[in-house]
C-alpha cells in the first residue's frame, strides 16, 4: 500500500511531467531546459562512445537550442541501472539515452522492471550487425562451401558469449540454411579471434570492428553479413539474405526517450537526429567502429525493436537460456 504522502508525490510528479512536456511544446520552444543524457554503461565502451559522439555533434552544431546537455554514466547490471533510471522519467522530454545490444538482452535474461516498451523510440542511427568470418587459408571460399561442408561434417562456429547477439545470428543461420553445427561460446573477443587464428574453430560470428583489421590484412575472409542491407562501411561483403538465407539480425544503436513523451517532442528529435547523421563527424564514427549507417526513424524503430526482441527471445528460449 502506498501511503498518502507517497501517492500525492507520485501524482504530483505525473502532473508536473505532463505539464512539462505539454508546456514545453505549447511555448513552441522545445528545448527550453537542459537535457540529461544518460549512458547506461561505463566510460570507454561502445555505448559510451556513441553517446558522447552524438552529444558532441549536438553541441558543435548547436542543435539543442543553445541549451546545456548533461551527460552522465549510470553503469551497472549490464545496463539495467541506467535504463531503469531513464524509464522512471516517464513523460519527461528532457531525458534521453542510447540503446545497444543490452537494451534488449538484459530485460530478457533478468528481471529488470523495464523493457524496450517503456521508452519512446526515436531513431536507429547505426546498425551493429555481425560478420561470419573464416580464415583465408581455409577451404571455405563462399558461404555455399561452408554450408555444404556442414551438411556432412561437424562444423564448429564460435562467437562471444552463450546468449548474446552472436549466438542469435548463429542460431538464425542454422535454421535458415538447414544445417547443424557446434556453437562454441568464447568469453571475450580476444579469445574468439585466436580461436580462429589457431585453427581451433572453422568460422566465427563477430562484430565487423573486431575482425575488419584481420580481413584487411588478408588473414580472414568475411562470408556473410547479418544486416538486411549491405553495410555502408563494408559494401563488398554480401548479406545472408542476398545469398538466399532468409534472416537478418542487428543490434539497435539508437536513441530513445522516456515513455509517453508527446509526439511533438518525438518529431523534434527525429528531425534533429536526421541532421546529426549527415555530419562528417558521425560518418567518421561509423567508419572507425565498422557500424553500418542504415537508419530507421520513429515508429518504424519501435517495430524494429519488437522484431529483434522476438528473434532474441526465440533463440534464447530454443537453447534453454530462458523459459
Amino acid at each position, binding site marked *: 500500500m502506498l501511503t498518502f504522502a507517497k501517492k500525492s508525490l507520485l501524482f504530483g510528479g505525473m502532473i508536473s511531467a505532463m505539464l512539462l512536456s505539454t508546456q514545453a511544446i505549447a511555448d513552441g520552444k522545445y528545448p527550453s531546459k537542459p537535457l540529461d543524457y544518460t549512458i547506461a554503461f*561505463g566510460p570507454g565502451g561502445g555505448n559510451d562512445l556513441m553517446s558522447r559522439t552524438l552529444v558532441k555533434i549536438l553541441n558543435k552544431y548547436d542543435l539543442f537550442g543553445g541549451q546545456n546537455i548533461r551527460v552522465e554514466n549510470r553503469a551497472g*547490471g549490464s545496463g539495467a541501472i541506467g535504463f531503469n533510471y531513464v524509464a522512471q522519467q516517464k513523460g519527461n522530454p528532457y531525458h534521453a539515452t542510447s540503446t545497444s545490444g543490452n537494451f534488449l538482452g538484459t530485460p530478457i535474461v533478468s*528481471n529488470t522492471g523495464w523493457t524496450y516498451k517503456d521508452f519512446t523510440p526515436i531513431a536507429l542511427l547505426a546498425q551493429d550487425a555481425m560478420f561470419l568470418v573464416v580464415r583465408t587459408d581455409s577451404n571455405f571460399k563462399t558461404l555455399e562451401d561452408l554450408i555444404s561442408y556442414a551438411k556432412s561434417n561437424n562444423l564448429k562456429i564460435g562467437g562471444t558469449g552463450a*546468449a548474446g547477439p552472436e549466438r542469435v545470428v548463429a542460431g538464425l543461420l542454422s535454421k535458415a540454411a538447414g544445417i547443424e553445427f557446434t556453437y562454441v561460446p568464447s568469453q571475450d573477443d580476444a579469445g574468439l579471434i585466436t580461436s580462429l587464428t*589457431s585453427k*581451433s574453430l572453422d568460422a566465427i560470428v563477430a562484430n565487423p570492428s573486431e575482425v*575488419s583489421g584481420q580481413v584487411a590484412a588478408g588473414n580472414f575472409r568475411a562470408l556473410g553479413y547479418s544486416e538486411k542491407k549491405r553495410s555502408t562501411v563494408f559494401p563488398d561483403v554480401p548479406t545472408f539474405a542476398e545469398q538466399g538465407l532468409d534472416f537478418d539480425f542487428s543490434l539497435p544503436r539508437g536513441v530513445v526517450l522516456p515513455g509517453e513523451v508527446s509526439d511533438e517532442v518525438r518529431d523534434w528529435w527525429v528531425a534533429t537526429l536526421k541532421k546529426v547523421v549527415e555530419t562528417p563527424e558521425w560518418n567518421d564514427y561509423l567508419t*572507425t567502429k565498422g557500424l553500418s549507417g542504415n537508419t530507421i526513424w520513429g515508429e518504424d524503430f519501435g517495430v524494429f525493436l519488437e522484431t529483434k526482441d522476438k528473434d532474441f527471445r526465440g533463440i534464447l528460449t530454443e537453447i534453454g537460456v530462458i523459459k
Partner: protein
Amino acid sequence: MGDIASNLMLGLSVALTSYNLIFLIVGVVVGMIVGLFPGFGPAAGIAILIPMTFGLEPATAIILLAGIYYGAMYGGTITSILINTPGESATVASTLDGYPMARAGRAGPALVMQAVASFIGGTIGVILICAFTPMLAKFASSFGPSEYFLIVVLGLLLLTTMMGDNLVNGVISALIGFAIATVGVDAISGAQRFTFGSPELIGGIYFVPVAIGLFGIGELLYCIYTGLHVKEQTRMKISFRSKSFWPTKVDFVNSKITFFRGSLIGFIAGVLPGSGATIGSILAYSVEKKVAKNPEDFGKGEMRGLVAPETANNAASAGAMVPLISLGIPGSGATAVLLGALMMWGMQPGPMLIYDQPEFVWGLIASMYLGNVMLVLICILAIPLFVKFLDVPYRLVVPVIVILCMVGSYALHSSMIETWMLIVAGVIGFGMKLCKYSPAATVLALVLGSIAENTFLQSLIISDGSLSIFVERPISLVLTLALAAIVLTTALLKFRKFMSAS
C-alpha cells in the same frame, strides 16, 4: 636490424617532441600516484583517466596512457613493500619478500632494487618488443582454447608455491576464489549462477573490490586487531646519505642473473594473451625459489624474491603490448582498457596497424624507453618521500586508506553494490589473516578461475568431449608434457624426501 633502427628513429622523432614529452612526464607521475593507492592498478588508472585524453592527438594520448600504465606498475610495488597492500594482482608476488624486507628495516634497499628491477624488466621488455613483434604475434595467434587452458593450469599449479607452509589452507583459499569466480552469467551456457535474480550480479563479482577488500581493508583490520595503532612507532629514517639506503653490492651480485631470468619469463607471459603480468610475476617468483640454493629464505625478505617478480611484471606489461599492437588482442586488464581507448581514437587495432600508422606504433614503443628512464629516476629520487609513509602514525593512516579504498572501488563503476562487496571482502580478509589463510591465493584464483573454466569447456566442446585435444595440437602437447614433468618431479622429490626421512 636496420629496419628496427630506422623504425625506432621514427618513433623517437614522435616521442621526443616537447609536447609529447610533457604528456609522458605527466603520465608517469600520475601513474605512480595512482599505483600508490590500494587497489588502483594500471587498469583502473587508465580507465579512470581516459576522459583526460579526449581532444588529444592519438599518439600523444597513447603516450600519456602508456605512461600511466608503466607508472602504476612502479607505484603499485611501493605499497606492496611498505604496507603489504598490492595495488593489483601483478604485484601480489612482490609483497612476499618485499614486505618482510621493509619490516626488517631494509625498506630503502627494497625500494631502490624494485625500481632498478622494474627498469631492467621494462627495458628488456621494450627491446624484445622491437626485435620480436612480428614473430611473437604469430606465436600468440596460434593459441587456441586448449593452449590457454594449459597455460592457466600451469599458472594455478605454480600458485601452490605461493601458499606458504599450510597447503590445506592455501587450497581452501584458492577454492574460495574459484567460488567467487562462478558468480554471474556462465559464458558457456548463458545461465545465471548465484545471481539470485539481481541484475547487479549478472556481470559477476569484479576483481577490484574483492582485491582491495581482502588486502587493503583486511590488512587494516588486522593491524588494528593487533594494536598497531596504539603502539609507539619506531621512526624509520631513510635518506640518501645513510648507508643503509642503498642496496649493497651483495644484493646486486646475487640478483644479476635474476634480472634477466625474470625479464624473460615476464615478457613471455605478457605476450601470451590472457596471462599477463600476474602469471608472469608468480612464475618468475616460483622459478627463482626453485633454482635458489636457499629456498627457505624466500618469504622472509630475500632480495631475489623481490627482484624476480618485479622484473617480470614490468617485462610482462611490455610483452602485453605485442599482441595488442600486432593482433588487437589485449593480454591483460590494462591493455584491454588501452584497446578500448585505441578504438575510441579511431585506430583499428590489428595486423595492419603497424603498417597503417607507423608513427603511432613506433612513437608508442619509443615512449616506453623514455618512460622507463624517467620512472627509475623519479622513483629513486622520490623514495625518501615515499618511505615517510611509514613515519605517519598509524591512527592517521587508517582513515585515509579506508577512504581511498572506498572511493577506489566505488569510482570504477559508480556502483554501491561493489562498495558493499569491498566491505564484506574486508571482513573476510581479516578473518583469513587471523586464521592464516591466503588472500593472495583467493584473488589469483578469482582472476584465473573463470578463464580456466571457460577455456576447458571450449576445448571439450570443440573436441566433442575428448581430452585428446590437449595432446593432438603441437603446442598443447608441449604444454601438457611440461605440466606432467613439473608434477612428476615435484612428486618424485617429495617421495625421496619421505624415503630418506623414514
